[in-house]
């Protein structure tokens, strides 16, 4: 789709958590600067700055209500759908401010896809669920190309073998784990650059969870993936970068191994050792 304009890697901001990663795959895809999100008068996110790398999985962890989902939803402007929500600061996608006036939300969301906490396939056939995005974005008009997109998306989401004989069945008839993979396939179908996942496994059993985690690992490198999770084990398993949120701020951000084995902040240490949250 849209080739990202080659932009110089944003200079790291002065806030302590954002550290420049020397390695090229870690070049920032999204970089947030002093982002605050308000629900009415309530400040849910307080001046957060973070660089999200291009080819890694970044996990947001933190106790309930810490603002990690809110921040995630501000990355593709899903907060716009909530009455009274307001975002301040700058969020740059490939150097472009996504909150600038004139930014097309439709284009943005095609580039930054999202998978939700509860699997939410549309009450349509499996095929139509996948074809929905390509159709609305006019990616292709031909049936055979669409068939190809559906197949490759399902294959990349690891669902093809399970559903290839029943593409016309309703998407809601699948099991929970299959539904979630269908939602991932649906997000992949429009060929996004970033995939946001908001606790994608919280409604799934351990086996389905393991399957999704494998899938996330397979998708790494092709997309910038940001995953919000309640489970620290999950963050440790699937991510390369971890940001610890607390009370609307990022307490600490770094490589996952550093965060889990060698946290700099006392609060991070307390959280990952299970002292609160």
């Amino acid at each position, binding site marked *: 789709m849209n080739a990202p304009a080659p932009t110089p890697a944003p200079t790291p901001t002065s806030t302590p958590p954002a550290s420049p990663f020397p390695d090229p795959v870690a070049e920032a895809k999204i970089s947030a600067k002093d982002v605050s999100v308000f629900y009415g008068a309530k400040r849910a996110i307080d001046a957060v700055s973070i660089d999200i790398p291009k080819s890694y999985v970044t996990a947001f962890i933190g106790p309930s209500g810490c603002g990690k989902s809110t921040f995630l939803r501000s990355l*593709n402007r*899903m907060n716009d*759908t909530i009455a009274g929500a307001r975002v301040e600061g700058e969020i740059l996608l490939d150097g472009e401010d996504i909150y600038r006036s004139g930014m097309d*939300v*439709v*284009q*943005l*969301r*095609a580039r930054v*896809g*999202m998978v*939700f906490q*509860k699997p*939410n*396939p*549309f*009450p*349509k056939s499996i095929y139509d669920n996948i074809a*929905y*995005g390509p159709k*609305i*974005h006019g990616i292709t008009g031909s049936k055979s190309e669409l068939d190809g997109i559906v197949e490759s998306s399902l294959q990349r989401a690891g669902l093809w073998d399970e559903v290839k004989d029943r593409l016309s069945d309703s998407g*809601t008839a699948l099991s929970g784990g299959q539904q979630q993979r269908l*939602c991932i396939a*649906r*997000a992949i179908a*429009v060929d996004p650059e970033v995939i946001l996942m908001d606790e994608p496994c919280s409604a799934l059993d351990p086996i389905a969870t393991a399957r999704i985690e494998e899938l996330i690992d397979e998708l790494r490198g092709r997309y910038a993936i940001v995953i919000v999770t309640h489970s620290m084990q999950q963050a440790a398993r699937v991510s390369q970068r971890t940001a610890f949120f607390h009370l609307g701020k990022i307490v600490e951000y770094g490589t996952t191994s550093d965060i889990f084995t060698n946290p700099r902040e006392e609060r991070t240490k307390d959280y990952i050792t299970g002292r609160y949250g």
Partner: protein
Amino acid sequence: MSPAILLLLAFGLGLVGWLAARSRAWAFRRSAPLGRIHSLPGFHAWYVALWIAVPALLFALVWNALSPELVTQSVLSDPAAAALPAFGFERDSMLAEAQAVALGNAPAVFNPDAQGLVEPYRAAIFRYEVIGLVATLVIALAGGIFSFLRLKPDFTARTRVERAVMGLLLVASLVAILTTLGIIVSLVFETVRFFTMVSPVDFLFGTHWAPDPMSSGAPDGKQFGAIPLFWGTIYIGAIIAMIVAIPLGLMSAIYLTQYASNTVRQVMKPLLEILAGVPTVVYGYFAALTVAPAVRDAAQAIGISSASTESALAAGLVMGVMIIPFVSSMADDSIAAVPQAMRDGSLAMGATKAETISKVLVPAALPGIVAGVMLAISRAIGETMIVVMAAGASANLTANPFQSMTTVTFQIVAMLTGEGSFDHPATLSAFALGMVLFLVTLTLNFIALRVVKRYREAYE
């Protein structure tokens, strides 16, 4: 003894029992080791009050229904009744006269022969009133004593009162069901009578409707072809009205749920609901006096000279407007019931609001919308006043919306309020028509409810 006094008596005794039981329960409570008894004193009070009032009231009810018959029986066994004519109208009227005088409803008998019956009547009425009163009192007291003696600190009054309340709720819900059954039975009865005179085949498939309530002799089945009525009903209620109501209702639901600001919604929703509350006779005026002439003028202006003042189109248009709130409120509910996750999913794919509505929300809400439309149709085809005032009386079998047409409901009104005697097939045809209408609307409602149910299962 009038029913009102029995009623007051039962309630009065109930109140006494209530107070007595309450104070007894309080006494339990004061003397109980921890100040605890199984049920609050109020439940003990209600338990006793119900035991006093309910059986007494039930008895009074039965007694009221039964005693006139008992009174008559006892009068007939009186020697004075021997003089009555053996059977028939005269005998009944004499009895009724004597009864009216005895009850004080009439100053004196008209027929002097009835005079001898007045005294026996008076005596019998008095006797049975006393019996009824005493029996009511005895039953109330028995209930009161029985229940009062059962009160103990650990008596489960609460569960029992709750069970009684449940029984009351059950009875309340049975009333509606029993009424429906009663309607069906009475309809079936008269319909069967009609079909013994006119063949169902003539009725259901005949295309000529011209019953003559004044005719005598064997009915002519050829006059009772109801197809033009069915057609008129469907054409006005299910076709023209729905062409108006479905798009407008659906669009207003979409606007209200998806686009309207809170303020607009708060103003417009009640306004739409007021539309649903306008008496249909008022719509009737509007259809007959405003819309129908306008439709005719418009039709004549475009060169349709056959347009009549009473047209199917006018009635259908107004009926469609009347139905809008039904469609829109059902559509509104079912669109609002589509999980937010579905909307978010579509928006997160980069779909616009309009794409989300047309490709995800409306399809997901479709079962609910279809159910709403079916309920609206069943409402529209049962609608009477608008068609009576605006659609006309002539049973035309035509697809021309500018002609006058008649409907099942209109003909029911016309046949029942006509000059014919009650057992004339023309009058009875109203019941057959009513039966058809009832079955059709019942089926539509049934399907609609099934659809709604299946739809609910998909999300919960």
